[in-house]
């Protein structure tokens, strides 16, 4: 009869762990998990409250005296109100187009400028860099900008929502930094072989910069998607051209009576009173965030570990 020797159970190694990495101690795992839980809570809790309030009726909002924490009276009427508006559908399309076109233009201009400034010692490099950077610190203000755009015929035109803010010097600087870290010997040997800078950019630099390209594209896309002040400035009253943010913003004050109009109500325009204004505001906030959350995971994988790395030496 063979004695069954008790052996310590072999701890299975997680196959996802790279071979060279040791197993973390239990304490480390514990702290890490604890930290993650806390972080998730402090972010998800307010988000939960926002979404819940957007689905709450006036009674629940009144009871909670503001943001709702315990579900009490649920309704989708805030969303119905917004969807029924008739303007939202069109505004959504406008937003999508502006975001797509704007990001494309911005990325083209930014990639070019970033690469153009990334070769150490290139002619005029510091001057051009400072030329661009100064615009980050000095601004004549919004009225002068308005006058310039208006003089160019941009008032109430879609291009006024794209071109004036197409260049973000911050993004150029970040991208430039990544480009500068790409193996210079690879680029140098390409140059010696006679390749022009355009080819180097297209064949060597860009394919190895997927991470930063994805990140900067995300930055631009989000800026375009969220941009609202440009609209206020350049097409304040032409609501048929408004992108989504502007339309959603008008819902924020839904249900508030006219300031300073005296004692009476003027019939018919106080909107649908049964929907809590707070609920509408929260619906707007939710609608602002949700599309980004949908798109974001797809963009994420471009700048996490395991995807194409940047400068690979040898």
């Amino acid at each position, binding site marked *: 009869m063979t004695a069954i020797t008790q052996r310590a159970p072999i701890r299975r190694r997680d196959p996802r762990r790279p071979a060279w990495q040791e197993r973390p101690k239990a304490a480390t795992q514990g702290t890490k998990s604890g930290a993650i839980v806390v972080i998730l809570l402090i972010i998800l809790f307010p988000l939960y409250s926002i979404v819940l309030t957007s689905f709450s009726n006036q009674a629940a909002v009144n009871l909670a005296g503001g943001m709702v924490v315990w579900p009490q009276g649920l309704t989708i009427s805030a969303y119905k109100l917004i969807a029924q508006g008739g303007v939202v559908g069109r505004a959504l399309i406008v937003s999508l187009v502006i975001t797509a076109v704007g990001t494309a233009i911005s990325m083209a201009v930014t990639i070019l400028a970033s690469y153009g400034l990334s070769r150490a010692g290139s002619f005029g490099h510091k001057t051009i860099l400072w030329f661009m950077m100064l615009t980050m610190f000095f*601004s004549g203000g919004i009225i002068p900008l308005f006058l310039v755009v208006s003089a160019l015929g941009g008032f109430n035109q879609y291009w006024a929502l794209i071109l004036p803010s197409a260049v973000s010097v911050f993004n150029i600087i970040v991208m430039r930094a990544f480009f500068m870290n790409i193996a210079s010997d690879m680029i140098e040997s390409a140059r010696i072989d006679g390749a022009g800078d355009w080819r180097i950019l297209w064949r060597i630099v860009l394919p190895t910069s997927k991470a930063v390209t994805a990140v900067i594209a995300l930055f631009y896309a989000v800026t375009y998607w969220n941009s609202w002040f440009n609209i206020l400035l350049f097409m304040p009253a032409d609501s048929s051209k408004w992108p989504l943010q502007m339309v959603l913003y*008008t819902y924020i004050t839904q249900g508030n009576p006219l300031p300073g109009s005296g004692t009476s109500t003027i*019939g*018919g*325009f106080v909107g649908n009173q049964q929907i809590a204004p707070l609920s509408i505001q929260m619906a707007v906030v939710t609608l602002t965030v949700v599309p980004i959350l949908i798109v974001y995971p797809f963009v994420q994988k471009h700048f996490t570990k395991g995807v194409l790395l940047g400068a690979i030496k040898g």
Partner: protein
Amino acid sequence: MTSAPHLSRRGFLTAAAGTASAVAAAPLLSACGTGAAITAGSTSANTLAKILPTYTPFAGGIKPDYPSIDGSEPGYLSYPTTLVHTVSETPGSGSTYNAIAPDWGAIPRTSGNTYYNALNAALGANMQWQPTNGTTIQTTLPTLFAGNQLPDWIEVPTFAQPPGFGQAVQTKLADLTPYLSGDKIKEYPNLAAIFSNGWQQAIWNNKIAGIPTVVSGFATGVFLYYRQDILDSLGIGTPSVNSLADLYDLGKEVNDPKAKRWAFDDIWQFMCFPYGTNFTPPQYIWTTDSKGNLITTFETEEIIEAMNWEASLFKAGMVNPEAVAGNTGTAKQRFWSGQNVITADGGGAWDAADVTSGTASNKGYVRNAFNFFTADGTGTPHVALSPPTEYVSYLNANLKPAQIKELLRIANYLAAPFGSYEFTLVNYGAKNVDYTVTSDGPVLTATGNKDVDAVVPILLASPNNVISNPGFPEVTRVSAQFVQRNAKYQFKPLFYGMNITVPNDLTTADQFAPFTGSGGINYIMYEVVRGRSTIADYQSTVNEWLRSGGTKLKAFMETVRAKYGDA
């Protein structure tokens, strides 16, 4: 919600200087200078008498259930079933115009909008109604003026006039005197029925510059409200508050933070009334001292007493923390949910929408208001009138006379009195498409809720205000009776209804903030009642203001008073 623009940290880095100059950036109202003579000053009593449109009340109107007493707004318990026609011919001649007015709330669709189609058909013109967001007009209006992108017809609320607006009026907006002064207005009978103090608000520098809208006879801006049902449930019933001391005691009775119920919101805007004075910058802050010299109410004893009294509320912990933190946006919400028992708010808060929101969670919700009282309980209350209206619409100076006349005829249509056929169309849209007639009056249909946005037409031209809440006769009853009772305490503060163009170098002083220093007079008052600054700080701020332009402003206003009278 903020009226400061949303800034992305990476995008508009220099937003400080940038954003800053957007708001009320009147400098570029005349960026290149005009050279035209722009006069400071106002309109003299004589000229006023000559040009003021002759007031012609509408004959044959429906009898109000609560008639106007001492100028109070008349109240109607029900909506008329037979609609009177006040306009016999189509006002427009088929032209296209665009009109911009602020709106607070969702914007309806522009194409296929049943309301706009019906309205434009009735008006006989292709009006492009362009609402712009009301919370951000202080950014939008200056850019429109500066960039010369003014529409044909624009609404400029008095609280959103950029500094130096008086000058823009003279150069960019049409002079309506030849069309509306004196008896000429009889060509537009509905406009002639607008109260004269409203028209006075539209007169700048001896000219009729615009059309006043939503004019009120009883324009005391602020009432002190309380939750009747809460007082009932606490066994207090109808409160008897005849002095500030009474108010304080009432507060102590109802204050219960543990039950999430605070006695007061920030009631500063009401505080001038018990003291029989007016602190509503920039215009209604003048009074005379014992020698008859002009001084600002900021320099009086009363304001210091007012600040001290309200500070006592804060100190006693009777003020809702949200109000302490300055979150005025949610004040109504707090009142509806009972977190504030007593609040100060405009007259517009007392309406059907308010009842619906309040009763949503509390079936017994009842809003009521304190009758006006004096600070120490003696004497008769003196209640300063607010401006007759805060909304005046203006026409573009580039319009030709025929176009101006056409727009005035359209304005005449829009200003048809309450309960008329035209009024119903403007406010409710097309019959049976946008609204249906019920026993409570017109009720919007689903299409109507989507398409009818009467704010823009109403802010461009409308009849005198009335109190009417179809379907909620109780609200009408209580509020109409309230204004009937209290109208007799009104008085006209100095410079009432006058539009005064202040010379350039005094524009800053006119904003009531010191030339240097942080925050200005308004702000220091806010800090004093919260105990963060002292009365001494307040006084030094006032002295700073006097030193850096205030004294000169006073001298200027003295000349105005001497030359033009004081209303």
